[in-house]
């Protein structure tokens, strides 16, 4: 427990929209550990971004959130807005999605960086602020950091903007970093550079990193542990190496198989609409090995024997299970392993 930074238990997030109640996150449970990278994989509409935002409680006003977010022993959901503001940036930092529009177009990069540093470090001379800001950019191996400070967002490429946002995230030396789709829409070369940046950033600062992405390659290379989300639920979770080598859940298998580098075999059908989700297993209507039981019942997260898929060992998971191995078990929400 000592190296567990944050425990998220039964997190539910839903929105009241014109078309009805949208259950964006349904009972998510996961643990984030110091210095380790947790990958949250899922396609559009799986609820991964909503989960990320709920950790820093930056969801829009009409969202209703329940469950518990134990961060260093304190449940973030109970904190007052003022206390929450202390946490943001200093303890948990968010690197937002689509870098192109996440920087204020009319302010120089320097002023936006200095704003972040001043928020945490209190009153400091402008020269020191500039030096720190330049230092952050250097850490992100940005060329000629000093000139960059005076430039405007529209003068930077997508990759460069991503680096500035990462630097901004690190300004408060947080212990948990949340990176939302850092490689989305980037060209091949820059995608590699950003991935390397994320890797040595986690190593250098020792901070935990929650990587939210739909890019399986990046997840496989970067993450220690991975969780796969589908229609608001975490349907598989486990060490990255093992999960990619032997994916348990049919959806994960299908997802990996559909990657261009793995033969591009598509999964039949389309993802369920968010307003009327099927009762039982959400992947039921697209699942190759669906069983009658899957249609009605909601499967729980089941462990599997390391090698054999068939033998059953039911042990419902709760945070306080005694004597668990150091590495999180490889589990999947599917009756194949019930």
């Amino acid at each position: 427990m000592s190296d567990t930074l944050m425990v998220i238990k039964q997190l539910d997030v839903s929105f009241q929209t014109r078309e009805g109640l949208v259950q964006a996150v349904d009972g998510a449970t996961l643990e984030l550990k110091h210095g380790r990278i947790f990958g949250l994989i899922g396609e559009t509409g799986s609820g991964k971004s909503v989960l990320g935002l709920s950790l820093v409680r930056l969801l829009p006003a009409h969202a209703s959130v329940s469950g518990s977010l134990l961060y260093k022993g304190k449940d973030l959901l109970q904190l007052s807005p003022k206390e929450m503001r202390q946490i943001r940036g200093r303890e948990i930092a968010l690197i937002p999605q689509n870098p192109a529009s996440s920087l204020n177009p009319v302010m120089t990069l320097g002023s936006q960086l200095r704003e972040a540093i001043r928020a945490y470090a209190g009153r400091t001379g402008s020269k020191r602020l500039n030096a720190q800001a330049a230092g952050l950019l250097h850490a992100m191996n940005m060329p000629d950091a000093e000139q960059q400070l005076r430039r405007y967002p529209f003068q930077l490429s997508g990759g460069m903007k991503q680096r500035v946002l990462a630097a901004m995230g690190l300004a408060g030396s947080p212990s948990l970093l949340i990176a939302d789709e850092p490689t989305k829409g980037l060209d091949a070369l820059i995608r590699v550079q950003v991935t390397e940046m994320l890797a040595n950033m986690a190593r250098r600062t020792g901070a935990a990193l929650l990587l939210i992405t739909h890019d399986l390659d990046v997840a496989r290379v970067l993450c220690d542990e991975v969780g796969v989300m589908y229609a608001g639920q975490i349907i598989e979770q486990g060490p990255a190496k093992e999960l990619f080598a032997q994916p348990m859940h049919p959806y994960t298998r299908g997802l990996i198989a559909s990657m261009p580098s793995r033969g591009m075999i598509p999964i039949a059908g389309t993802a369920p609409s968010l307003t009327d989700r099927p009762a039982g297993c959400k992947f039921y209507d697209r699942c190759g090995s669906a069983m009658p039981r899957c249609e009605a019942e909601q499967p729980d997260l089941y462990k599997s024997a390391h090698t054999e898929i068939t033998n059953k060992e039911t042990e419902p998971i709760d945070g306080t299970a005694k004597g668990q191995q150091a590495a999180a078990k490889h589990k999947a929400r599917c009756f194949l392993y019930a």
Partner: protein
Amino acid sequence: MLEIIELHKRYRSNWLTGRGHQAVEPATFHIAEGESLGLVGESGSGKSTLARLLLKLISADGGRILYKGTDISGYSLKQMRPLRRELQIMFQHPHSALNPRRTLLDSLLEPVLLHRIMNKAAAREKALALLDVVGIRAELLPRYPHQISGGQIQRIVIARALMLEPKFLVLDEPTSMLDVSVQAQVTQLLQRIRKEFGLTYLFISHDLELVRHMCDRIGVMKEGRIVELDESERIMERPQHPYTKQLVNAFQAFKQ
């Protein structure tokens, strides 16, 4: 099928001073009938511009385009009209690919009605047939674009292109905005119809893996110039140009 000789385009940013930058350097290559030629490069490398030059959507500053042997560089809008049936294009952003104010059915029938090659009833018939080909349920037809997913929109666009029985299809990063699984579905569909209808593709993307999967030959572009053009395998195994090497390594990095 398509012969390109010294085609180039220059963008003047300020019509007073004439300063501008060379968007597409003079390019010479050909695309054989039934072939699928890939075009890879970073954003801003001019690959989309080159594609639009081929279809004469934007006017080139020089060079010639031979389509099935005839030089169509000088063709006027009128002369190009009959050819438009055979040359089609598909865009990257699903959300702005179809007119939000028209139903999917209207959008589907528009090409045929525009070219007046079929009456409405026959057109509906053909549309329904093509829907099965691209795997879209007929009851979606009366819906509007914003009521269906990105993947489904791209399939409708493909069906729409097929309505005119095209010969040559330019695919400008058709799946880059889609999720991996949906991308797989659409690319598989594209491969199937290429064989079924004997189409010729120009496939543009910044994802080398995807292009390798889809295309026979790959052209690599950097800052408006085609730096290397060769068989897909040879590009992947033994890249010659340093930039191509860089690209291939970038994708190898995720392999081990």
